[in-house]
Structure formats: C-alpha cells, structure tokens
C-alpha cells in the first residue's frame, strides 16, 4: 500500500489531519503524522520526517503532504537523507484536502504511487461551495 506522511509546522495540525483522513471509507490507508520540530515547537524536522516516511513505507512508495515552503525543504532533505529503495514523492496539494483524497485513493485496491499523488493534487480543484 502507498504510505502517506503529513508534514505540518504544527504537530496538532498534522495529527488532526490524519484523524480526519482516517475516517474516509472503510479500507484504511497507512497515515503517519510528522508535525512540529523534535521538541514539539512549531516548525518541521527533517529527521522526524525521515522517520515518518520509513514508518509509512512499503514497496509501493510514499506520498508526502506538506503545509508551507519550509516544510517542502525539510521533506526534500529528509528524502535525500533516507536514500530509500522505494519512491517518495511530495504532493503539490493543499495539505488537508490532499491528504483526504490521497487516503481514499491509497486504500483502494488498484492504487499506485502515481494515482495517489494525482488524487492528492486533484484536491487543488476541489470546491467547497456551490
């Protein structure tokens, strides 16, 4: 199963987003929160993200959802530091909405890294009103 890692500057936000996503559909995606710095302060942490990626990973790879620009930088660094033999991709998607989409797709039996990433990025088109 494609794993999902949620990287926010806030540990609470990352966990809360995983909570909401864990409720989508019956089949469960592999969701790991990596929010805040090592000590829980607001920020992101490359080592923490690396660990989360490893926890979420299996051979199908991992999609990483991020909130802000410096989360992207730390996620990239985490990926370089891991040098894993599975693929890890950062989604260019709104963090909560992308995680929900990705969780539903990842839980599907025909999910691939590409399809999970694409569904996360489709969340950019998601409209809430009207």
């Amino acid at each position, binding site marked *: 199963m494609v794993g999902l890692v949620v990287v926010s500057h806030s540990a609470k936000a990352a966990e809360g987003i995983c909570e909401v996503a864990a*409720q989508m559909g*019956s089949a469960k995606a592999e969701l790991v929160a990596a929010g805040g710095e090592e000590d829980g302060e607001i920020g992101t942490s490359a080592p923490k993200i690396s660990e989360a990626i490893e926890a979420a990973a299996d051979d199908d790879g991992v999609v990483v959802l991020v909130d802000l620009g410096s989360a992207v930088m730390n996620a990239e660094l985490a990926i370089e530091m891991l040098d894993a033999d599975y693929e890890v991709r950062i989604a260019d998607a709104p963090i909560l909405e992308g995680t929900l989409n990705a969780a539903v797709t990842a839980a599907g039996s025909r999910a691939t890294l590409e399809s999970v990433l694409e569904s996360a990025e489709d969340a950019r088109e998601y409209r809430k009103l009207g």
Partner: protein
Amino acid sequence: MVDDDIQREAVHAAIEAVADRLVAEKAYLTDLDSAIGDADHGANMSRGFTKVADKVEELDGDVGEIVKTVGVTLVSEVGGASGPLYGGSIMHASQELGDGLTSETSVAFAEAYLDKVQDRGNAEVGAKTMVDALTPAVHSYKKAIEVDDLPPLTALAKAVDAAERGVQFTVPLRARKGRASYLDWRSVGHQDPGATSTLFILEELLAVAE
C-alpha cells in the same frame, strides 16, 4: 383540525417510535455508513433521536414548537452531515405547522423540508443521498393528497413505498455528494445510509398513524 392534546400526543408517540427504531437499526446504519462513509450514521441518528425523545417528553407547546425542538436538538447533537440536513430542515419546516397538523400543513411541511435539504446539501436526485428517498416520498405524498384527494394515511403509505424505491435506487449509483463521493466509483453497489434512515423514519410515522 383535531384537538391540540391529541395532536401533541400523536407527535410524542411518533418521536418515540422513530427513536426506538433508529436505536434498533443503529448497527445496520453504521454498517451501511462504514462501507461508503465514516461509520457513524447509526450512532448519529440513534443518539440524536434519543436526545430528541428525552427533550420532547417535557414539552407542552404546540405541535410546531415541538417539531422545532426536534430540529434544534438534532442540530446540537448530531455533528455529521445528517445533523444540519435532518435537524436544520426540520427546524425550518416546523414553521409550516403553525396551524397544527392537518393534511394541508403536512404537505407544506414535507415540501419545506425537502426544499431545505436540497438547498442546504446541494444534492440533485441521483447523487446517492437521502434526497433520493425523500424526493419521491414527498412527491407521492403531495400528489396523493392534493391531486387524488386520498386520506393522509394512504398518502403516507405511498410515501413509504416511494422512499423504499428511492433507497433501492441508491444502491447502483455513484455518489456525487457527501463523504461517499470521495470513494467515487467504489461507492457503486452500496446502499446510502441517509436514504435508509429517511425510509425508517417514514415507516415509523406510518406505523404510528395507523
């Protein structure tokens, strides 16, 4: 128009019957919602209507006020989509019961309720939601009373029959609204929880009316 006390009693009896039924169907509704949602529709409906039954027991306002309280209570007790859809629409439609419960006001109530559900949720018929049970039920009820001049009990039986078809109709559809829409094609083949609870409520209203 029948006596106020009799009306109040009928409404109380209906609410109790609905609450009992939804408590009895809790596991079933939860199963339906776990397939295409978040597995809480049974808990939402049984908790919501149990609170409603408690709340309403003490009330002795007119029917409109009692029904409004049903809505308000659901809104504050039910945090899922069904809270604003059931609760908010009952609150809104309760205005139509100002003159008590007659076959005319019951049609007005049903229509106002359907309108509000559609307005709030923006779901068309065929989106695999409660609207698919509700729309044919309300249409059948209105036609039976206003066109065919049938007694309310017969009209209500037709509404239940229509809702039943609506529930079956949701099974092969792809969800376009609500949580189930996230599942897209994977929602096909599953029965909609909200359409099902709508049917259960109508069945209880019919049973009490009989």
